[in-house]
């Protein structure tokens, strides 16, 4: 049996699955229930200054028959009293000493930070997470993402916390920024023991076409909120990867964003996350999803021969390069399996209208399209739209012997500088004359 016990900057938990700071960690009741169900850790709903929440707080987008592929909220931090939260943290730790309880915090002044860190340590928190991510409401008051977007302020506050903290300090980052590695490096400079990302992305969910009010609606008005759920995973993965690869960051990462099952978690970890946090999926399906995540992770590790989490954390990182390092001599071409094709011709119309006119309709009366090899640039589009698994495959056509990247071209002074250069992209690529579009 693989060992899935986890260690994030010294914070130990029986498994790498934590609840993110959000409504599922609002109370000791919920956190105990979650631990009982199998979750390894919980980041408590952010504690801090007194706030008021609105009624009607969430919006979602559905894609076709799937509900809540994207989720948004205009909720602030906890609206329960600090004293109640502290008492409940203490109680949870009594029942679950081996599980990780992290206190998420958001206050303003240095004195307030010092005080609240001491309070949660006294209550038995195993770590603190500084919420520099909330992209709505709190930032208008100079907290949350307002801090996360100012690396120097973030660094200062991190230092304040480190002045007193005895437990590991995690800095939670906002994705609402151009380059995530800047606040990440600032956190590291400030002495943070780990970073967690991403918090939610600023968003507006949509507009009601009858009332002209975006959702969620609060008495006829709305406001921008924070976006999360399955739809944000690719953004989160990229940011986790950027931080993991940055030489100025070099502190452990807790991956958050769009995690719903064991696969999503493993992807975050392959890109450098030491553990993961989950919010939307639990808000959708409850704590019970952990039943799927743990055996799924264990099964993956057994099949790949990994004995512990460290065996695969960051394993995909060497395979993520900057664009200039990619091999420009690598050439793939789409190949349609006539046997598997069901004849929907989505590939044809996608390539014809949306790509490179490299697919022809059959003339022999059947419905299986044909690839025009000379025109196919190997973009993948057809294989992505095809509804049949492994029906369109991308087949390698170069001999695999040559490796030349843009960087190599630049170094050898071989980079094309005019459009007539034979090395220039698109040279010799046939496109129909415009008027041919009307001759059908």
């Amino acid at each position: 049996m693989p060992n899935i016990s986890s260690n994030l900057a010294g914070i130990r938990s029986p498994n790498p699955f934590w609840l993110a700071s959000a409504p599922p960690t609002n109370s000791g009741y919920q956190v105990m229930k979650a631990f009982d169900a199998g979750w390894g850790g919980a980041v408590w709903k952010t504690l801090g200054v007194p706030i008021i929440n609105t009624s009607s707080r969430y919006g979602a987008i559905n894609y076709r028959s799937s509900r809540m592929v994207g989720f948004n909220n205009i909720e602030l931090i906890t609206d329960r009293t600090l004293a109640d939260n502290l008492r409940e943290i203490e109680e949870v730790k009594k029942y679950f000493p081996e599980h990780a309880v992290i206190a998420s915090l958001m206050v303003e002044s240095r004195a307030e930070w010092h005080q609240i860190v001491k309070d949660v340590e006294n209550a038995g928190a195993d770590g603190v997470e500084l919420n520099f991510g909330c992209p709505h409401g709190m930032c208008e008051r100079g907290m949350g993402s307002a801090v996360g977007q100012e690396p120097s302020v973030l660094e200062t506050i991190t230092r304040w916390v480190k002045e007193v903290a005895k437990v590991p300090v995690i800095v939670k980052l906002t994705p609402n920024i151009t380059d995530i590695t800047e606040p990440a490096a600032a956190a590291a400079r400030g002495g943070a023991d780990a970073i967690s990302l991403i918090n939610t992305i600023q968003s507006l969910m949509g507009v009601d076409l009858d009332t002209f009010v975006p959702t969620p609606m609060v008495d006829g008005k709305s406001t921008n909120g924070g976006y999360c759920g399955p739809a944000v995973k690719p953004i989160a993965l990229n940011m986790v990867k950027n931080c993991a690869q940055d030489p100025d960051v070099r502190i452990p990462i807790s991956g958050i964003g769009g995690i719903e099952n064991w696969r999503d978690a493993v992807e975050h970890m392959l890109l450098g996350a030491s553990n993961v946090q989950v919010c939307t999926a639990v808000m959708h399906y409850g704590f019970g999803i952990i039943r799927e995540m743990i055996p799924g992770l264990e099964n993956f590790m057994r099949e790949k021969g990994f004995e512990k989490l460290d065996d695969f954390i960051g394993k995909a990182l060497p395979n993520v390069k900057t664009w200039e390092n990619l091999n420009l001599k690598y050439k793939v071409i789409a190949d349609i399996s006539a046997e598997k094709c069901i004849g929907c011709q989505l590939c044809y119309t996608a390539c014809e209208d949306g790509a490179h006119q490299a697919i022809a309709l059959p003339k022999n009366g059947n419905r299986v399209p044909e690839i025009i090899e000379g025109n196919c640039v190997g973009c993948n589009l057809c294989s992505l739209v095809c509804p049949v698994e492994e029906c369109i495959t991308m087949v390698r056509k170069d001999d695999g012997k040559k490796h030349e990247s843009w960087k190599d071209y630049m170094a050898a002074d071989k980079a094309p500088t005019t459009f007539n250069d034979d090395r220039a992209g698109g040279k010799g690529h046939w496109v129909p004359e415009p008027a041919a579009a009307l001759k059908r």
Partner: protein
Amino acid sequence: MPEFKQPTTEQDLELAFEQLKPYMNPTMAYYESSRCLFCYDAPCVTACPTGIDIPLFIRQINTGNVDGAAKTIYDSNYFGNICGKVCPTEVLCEGACVYNHQDVKPIEIGRLQSYATSQVIEKEKRLYHPAPPNGKKVAVIGAGPAGISCACELRLMGYEVTIFEAKKHPSGLAIYGCAPYKVTNEDVLDEIVWLQEQFGFEILYNHPIHSAEQIKSLEAYFDAIFLGIGLGATRPMSIPGENLENCYGATEYIEQVKISPLKVRVGKKVVVIGGGNTAMDAASESARLGAEEVTLAYRRSKEEMGAYEFEYELAKGVGVKGIFNAVPTAILGNGQVEGVRFIKTNSENGRVITVPGSEFELPCDAVILATGQEKKTGFLSLIEGLEWNKDGSIKVNVETFQTTNPKYFAGGDAVNGGAEVVNAAAEGKMAARGINSIMA
């Protein structure tokens, strides 16, 4: 014109017994599993006599952890693949699926279940490792679903288990009874072989226990004995002509259909007597084997039939005609069956009243009596102190399945009076826990 002709080759048989629930391909399984809502306190689970965590295994299929899905199924039900195919899912899990309330097709739970389990069977995947021997020995009488499930669970806990089986194949009525268009004998036997490899119990075939001496020696050697003996032969109707050639008991006839389908004699005009599921099966099977005319005759009204509605629909679908409120008074013929004499009936407050002077005759050349199975009280009377109810079903403690003789436990048809494979599987497993709770 009958839809089916009498099969003479294996290919003919495959057509005649085309599977109602064929295996899904990965695309089907992915689409179907994507639809499951992952309900909380899911009604499908409550409706499953073995309480399989259905939303979990479906989610595991959806996230590509098919082995994990199979494990989830087998943890609750050792007859996972067989049940996926033969369970009356319409009235169990699928009948309870919340989609029914939306008039949307319920999730195809049975087929998804077989999808996952058949793969671990095919790959000979090892999912279970029995505990080290605990030095205790249990005899199981009957290698039906109840007996084998009991054996698996006992082996898991470290008991040594020997199964005594009268016949030459395992799985009881799963192989000798369940309709061939629901499950193939091959699929049944493959699952039992897989179980035997996982759990390592011994089955002694052609080994009926029928004498007091045998029972004494079992009692002397084993610490406990489980009775999974099922039901007996078809109960006679006690009307003239029952001994004519071509008048069969349904279970006996179906056994021939199952074991030597190419050799079984099929009448041209068949009358099936009874209104239960076995009657429906016998009628459907006759029709699929090429009988030109199959008539189901039931002594009460259509609405009062014990058979599930979908089973009657299935029979009608292959050309079976029903006549209701008619009870046979004699089977006619001279050496061979030539017809059945009926008298019409009315049902009043559940009682059947014959209508004087309403006799009629139905010519036919075969009669199948599906009038219920006898209980094995003759055998039971060999066991000291063992008591049974008025209907011949063995008395047990509802939690431990211990009988009135403390050394004996029992489950399956012999206890519930005749239900489904899934009930026998559930009771066999619970009885194993009962044995353990009393012996440990």
